[in-house]
């Protein structure tokens, strides 16, 4: 194998492939190292990919990439026992590229993206687990994998949320449980015509659901995305749920979601064809690691670059944006023939200017708000009870709407909390 290359990118997820593709296309020598035999084999997302960033890198990528469906419907559902209350939004306008969301399957998508990087000239080495960084005078000078050492001017750590490289470089101390969610997912097969009938879709239109009230009161939520011939159903639970004696084991959270009548109707007659789990960075702005040091840039989940604002989870988009910014920084460093912090710092600058860090700052209170225990249980219960009272027929005089509302509010959620949560949500989301 080559002994020295310009750049080594560790990890062929969206962040790593974006960096490798950008560099290769600009005729830079780049080695993309992935521990899986085939890129994508180790990776899990919901997943809806927002199109705008990838479109900048690979124009009209949707014509070529393995896309499942284009999301034209979003549904936020409050689940409570037998009941469900939905905020359902559909619009053909959601379909306009590149600003729309596409449901994807990571095994297919990651392979495609890594292949594009390869075609652009990147050297893809799969089945290799990078064990550590190689250092010289406080400068990262390459990687080690088993007995092999490969040198490079710059290493890009795109090794995902459990990034060993970021920790070895001292850019982050261990992850904190409150900054991390555990995502558990099942892919459930269903024929495409049933999916289209069940969700009122046509052709390759798709829907994306977010569920609240389905995590036993612990911070987290559920999701469902339609693929061409399957559904991606999952749940994200923040790790502190397991630090308390919850008695609920992780796999039981997705079974709990599946027992709601609303979900049962949706997945009826489907079979689980894959079970998976993966961590999600949910610390928001305060969960970010340091982004660079001498000879090293950190991109994507490895840096904590993801945002969950309750009604949407963005990670892949951020990963791709950071990969592109890292590549730009490296090209600039090549010109200056300097790979110390002095040139690496440009990456931080680019990220600060990008929508990624701006969004993470704007929504820096989101992790706290969407972790509110009331949002997880009291509000879903309240809104469903209220709707139930509103619509049920009891052959007794109906209470006035406002009285009914107040009765429920006072009964189920104390008014001060309602005001505080309302204000926080308005300011923070």
């Amino acid at each position: 194998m080559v002994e020295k290359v310009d750049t080594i990118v560790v990890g062929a997820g969206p962040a790593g492939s974006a960096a490798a593709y950008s560099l290769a296309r600009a005729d830079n020598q780049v080695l993309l190292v992935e521990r899986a035999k085939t890129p994508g084999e180790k990776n899990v997302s919901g997943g809806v990919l927002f199109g705008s960033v990838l479109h900048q890198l690979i124009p009209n990528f949707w014509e070529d990439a393995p896309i499942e469906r284009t999301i034209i419907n979003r549904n936020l559902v409050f689940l409570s026992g037998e009941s469900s209350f939905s905020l359902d939004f559909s619009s053909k306008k959601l379909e306009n590229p590149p600003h729309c969301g596409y449901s994807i399957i990571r095994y297919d998508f990651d392979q495609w993206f890594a292949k594009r990087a390869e075609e652009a000239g990147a050297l893809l080495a799969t089945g290799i687990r990078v064990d550590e960084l190689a250092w010289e005078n406080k400068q990262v000078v390459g990687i080690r994998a088993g007995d092999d050492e490969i040198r490079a001017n710059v290493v890009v750590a795109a090794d995902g949320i459990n990034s060993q490289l970021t920790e070895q470089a001292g850019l982050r101390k261990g992850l904190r449980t409150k900054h991390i969610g555990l995502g558990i997912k099942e892919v459930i097969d269903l024929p495409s015509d049933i999916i289209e009938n069940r969700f009122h879709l046509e052709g390759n239109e798709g829907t994306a659901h977010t569920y609240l009230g389905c995590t036993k009161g612990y911070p987290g939520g559920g999701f469902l995305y339609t693929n061409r011939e399957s559904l991606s159903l999952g749940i994200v639970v923040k790790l502190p749920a397991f630090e308390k004696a919850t008695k609920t084991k992780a796999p039981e959270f997705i079974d709990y979601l599946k027992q709601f009548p609303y979900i049962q109707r949706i997945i009826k007659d489907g079979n689980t064809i894959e079970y998976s789990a993966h961590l999600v960075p949910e610390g928001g702005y305060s969960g970010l690691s340091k982004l660079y040091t001498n000879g090293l840039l950190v991109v994507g989940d490895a840096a904590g670059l993801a945002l969950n604002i309750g009604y949407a989870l963005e990670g892949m988009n951020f990963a791709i944006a950071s990969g592109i910014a890292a590549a730009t920084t490296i090209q600039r460093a090549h010109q200056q023939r300097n790979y110390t912090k002095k040139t690496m710092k440009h990456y931080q600058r680019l990220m600060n200017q990008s929508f990624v860090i701006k969004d993470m700052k704007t929504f820096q209170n989101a992790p706290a708000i969407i972790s509110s225990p009331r949002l997880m249980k009291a509000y879903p219960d309240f809104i469903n009870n209220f709707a139930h009272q509103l619509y049920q027929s009891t052959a007794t005089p109906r209470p006035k709407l406002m009285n009914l509302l107040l009765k429920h509010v006072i009964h189920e959620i104390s008014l001060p909390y309602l005001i505080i949560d309302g204000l926080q949500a308005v300011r923070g989301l």
Partner: protein
Amino acid sequence: MNSNIEDKLGTLRYNIDKESHILVNFEICKNCKPKPCILGCPAQCFELINDEVRFQYEDCIECGTCKILCDKDAIHWNYPRGTFGVAFRKG
């Protein structure tokens, strides 16, 4: 609809290495009250049998939850060696 964890893990393909990629120091576990790894592992690799923690790596889906939940440094964690471990077909 398959709902037990064995069936769910049965949907997965693995290339299992001879040696475990995760090492647990069970001496430390003896003094750990909450044992969050047992609740948190989505593949139920950690089990409590006769009050003792047991661990098997074969079903591991490489999420990293156990490493983050264990605040007693009892877990020496790594991914499996290249090409080994779980292989998702969807993800």
